[in-house]
């Protein structure tokens, strides 16, 4: 019995392996596995055996059947990658994957670029006091710069939700000894009536590098590298003088407007350039507050709108959609 089954199995496998067309394979399948095939004939014999024999034979029988089935199946797949009956345009079985929030995805892209330039990632508190949010950023109490941002207050007059991630820079200056290089993406808050283009919650991406002999030329290289890696090697950037209380000298960086190829359009207000970020050399007053000699050390800092860049990257034209459930995750 055992021998007979073994022979059928070996014979079947040999034939199936060497078969070269679909019809022949189908004929072999019917011959061995079909309703009136060899194995079916065999199965009829099983009840006639003694109980002990039956257990043993059943096991061998099953082994043989599985082996032949597997051989036919795998041959079918190899033999016939394009099955005649299969509409391969039918969708595959959906796979559930999780996606990052677009802001996290863009922050990650940026972190990767700046890590490559030797930066680490920092973060800091979202509830801030007046000192770290304003004073240490060279914005004393009566500075007109404080008008630029209308704060959300937790406790008047000096506890706010941070109005920019520059407050993280205040903490970095306070805690770290140069040289250091940090980037810090994060949430910021301001008094703003929510609309498609403005929100009381927004995201910034800032960075700072402090050490000896750090210059505007280094800032230029760092940001140009960023622009080329993030926006593409063909993109152009322009550096111009700009005022921010926390830097001196200050810079504004624009990138070429791709909507009009710099010919001038409504997106770039006919300038041919789109404002992208602001920065400059860390203001000497900020070093003095933390006891660092501004004649010995220098550093640069910059900041940009993480949410704006994210919206441009993913073509999201309503800032509210970043937070309110109106964003479709397409996978």
């Amino acid at each position, binding site marked *: 019995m055992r021998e007979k089954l073994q022979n059928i199995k070996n014979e079947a496998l040999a034939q199936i392996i060497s078969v070269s067309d679909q019809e022949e394979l189908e004929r072999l399948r019917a011959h061995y596995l079909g309703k009136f095939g060899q194995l079916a004939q065999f199965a009829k014999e099983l009840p006639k055996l003694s109980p002990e024999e039956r257990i043993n034979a059943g096991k061998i029988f099953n082994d043989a059947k599985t082996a032949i089935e597997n051989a036919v199946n795998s041959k079918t797949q190899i033999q016939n990658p394009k099955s005649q009956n299969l509409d391969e345009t039918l969708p595959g079985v959906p796979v559930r994957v999780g996606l990052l929030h677009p802001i996290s995805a863009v922050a990650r892209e940026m972190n990767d670029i700046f890590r490559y330039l030797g930066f680490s990632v920092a973060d800091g508190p979202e509830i801030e006091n007046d000192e770290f949010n304003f004073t240490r950023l060279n914005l004393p109490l009566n500075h007109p710069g404080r*008008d630029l941002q209308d704060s959300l207050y937790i406790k008047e007059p000096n506890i706010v939700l941070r109005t920019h991630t520059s407050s993280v820079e205040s903490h970095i200056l306070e805690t770290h000894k140069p040289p250091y290089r940090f980037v810090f993406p994060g949430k910021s808050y301001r008094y703003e009536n929510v609309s498609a283009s403005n929100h009381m919650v927004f995201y910034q991406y800032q960075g700072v590098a402090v050490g000896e002999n750090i210059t505007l030329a280094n800032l230029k290289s760092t940001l140009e590298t960023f622009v080329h890696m993030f926006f593409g090697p063909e993109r152009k950037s322009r550096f111009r003088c700009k005022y921010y209380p926390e830097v001196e000298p200050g810079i504004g960086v624009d990138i070429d407007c791709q909507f009009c190829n710099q010919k001038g359009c409504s997106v770039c207000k006919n300038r041919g350039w789109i404002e992208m970020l602001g920065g400059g050399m860390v203001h000497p007053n900020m070093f003095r507050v933390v006891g660092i000699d501004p004649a010995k050390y220098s550093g640069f800092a910059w900041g940009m709108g993480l949410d704006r860049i994210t919206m441009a990257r993913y073509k999201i034209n309503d800032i509210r959609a970043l937070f309110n459930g109106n964003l479709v995750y397409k996978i």
Partner: protein
Amino acid sequence: MIVPLDWLSDYVKLPKEVKLLTDKLTVIGHMLDKAKDNIIDLELRGNRPDLLGLIGVAREVATVFNQKLKLPDVSTLPKIDKGCNLVKVDKSAQDLVYRYTAFSMKIKIGPSPGWMIKRLESWGVPTINNVVDITNYVMIETGQPMHAFDSDKLIGKRLNLRLAKNGEKFSTVQQGQIVTLSSEDLVICDDESPQTLSLIGGWGSKVSDQTSEILLEAATYNQANCRRSSRRLKIVTDASVRHEKLLHPAQVLPALERAYYLLQKYASAKPTSLVSDYYPNPTALKSILFYSSEVKRLGGIDISVKTMIKILTSLEFKIVKSGLSYKITPPTFRTDIEQSADIVEEILRIYGYDQIPSIPLSGIIPQPMTYSSYKIQETLRDHMTILGFDEVITLSMINNKLAKLFGCDADAISLINPPDPDIATLRTSLIPGLTEYARKLLNQNISDIKLFEIGKVFYKQNNKHVEVIKLGFISTGNFFDIKGIVDTLGKLLGISNLKPQISQLDPAITYELGIKTSLYWVEINVDNLIHELPPFVNHYEIRSIYPPIIEDINIILTESYDSLINKIKKLSSLIKQIDLIDKYENKLTLRITYHSNSKQLSSSDVSPIREKLMSLS
């Protein structure tokens, strides 16, 4: 700042091409906002009040294009009255007024000359009469606001500057506009009542067709106070915009001299008083120690000392060599220049930011020191997305009703000035926001919901404001689906005792929010997790060359599954894995994998263990 180009060309020769002009202005710090019909509009810089006058703009143009600045004609003022009879400043207001200079003159009211009307209209100010127009014209030229009173309407014919009384009323020059003042507003009064504010003139003493004598003034006030008054009274004028900036008191005189010249020429002005010049603490000129090497140290570019001096001289900085350094005195109108770095910016911006080379950061690359609080968030983002969860971000402040519904309003922090009073509570948990988000998706007929958020929550503790990073997730499915997520997350993190509470959303809440699907949620304190996170997790081992023995056993559960499994694990080190295959009431089928790395197991190794195992239930 609106700059009509033909007006600007009074003071400096302009390049033929407007674009060349505006490009250059943009790069040196005055970005073009828009340009139309020979009028350009430049973005205001917070620290450059001199650019709120056309002469200031012209000076920048002259410097960049190597042209001469032509200052307009002026007349010498009458002598200073030592008694300062026209102006008194009350003690209470002395911190708010730095300089107040005034004198009176007879004038002939009439229309302004046509060219002046045309220019003022091109700038966007309505023309009234020659006197008022001249004060506006000079403000636009110099950036210094000034005001003319009708002397005959001033009771006592002199001015007293004081703080307003709380609730005091004032009628502005805008017909019908009456504002209520507070004790923080500065008022400029005659012997009886307020006549002007620093922000705006008054109705009572405005110059009209009947006016025959005026009192002309120019002043410098405390900027912060002007700004606050402007915000409080909601009055924004061309004068208020300028007074809010750090105008230098020295600018008062050239402005008055210019106005006096125009008043003589176009309104037949004849002085009737000396000049009352209230200026108790004249601002001293400051000189700044400057090393030319600073330009290279901060700017990363070599510029010759000769070029530096040429640039600074053209911007009217005074330079005196002093040993190896220079003593540099900025002109009074450049109130933004305070230290060496400011001078570096002046040189660089005029020389051209585009000339600065691009040089990669050099020197030792600092040790990587990404904060653990950031790193763990990124790790969690990786794990949660692997587990099939989408990341969302919800607002840090939640709807007050939602806060109450979730019972998280007791220790919650409220915003003092929320833009929307309904959304004024800082979240103490991520779950209300996630629930609201999930509800929105359910309403879109999305049935398979798996969301997570990583973010700060906020609450009060011992009178302090505390913020904690949390990971929250919410999911459809059943308890064990979520438990599976938590278990795998624990394995990925290498934290075996990650056992957060898994909760079904409270039926009272789901009812209130109209959610008909069962939702489970978990919230984990990420700040605590940082300390539990092992520095390294090994998810891998080599497969043994000896095959395992696998068998299914049936067992009756008489305790918790957890404690049963712990007991089984302790029976033998050969038990490598226990899987739950089936469960019916308290009958379990467990698949036990016996395995050794050192030898081939036989039934004689396994059967004693199996016997102990069976005796457990």
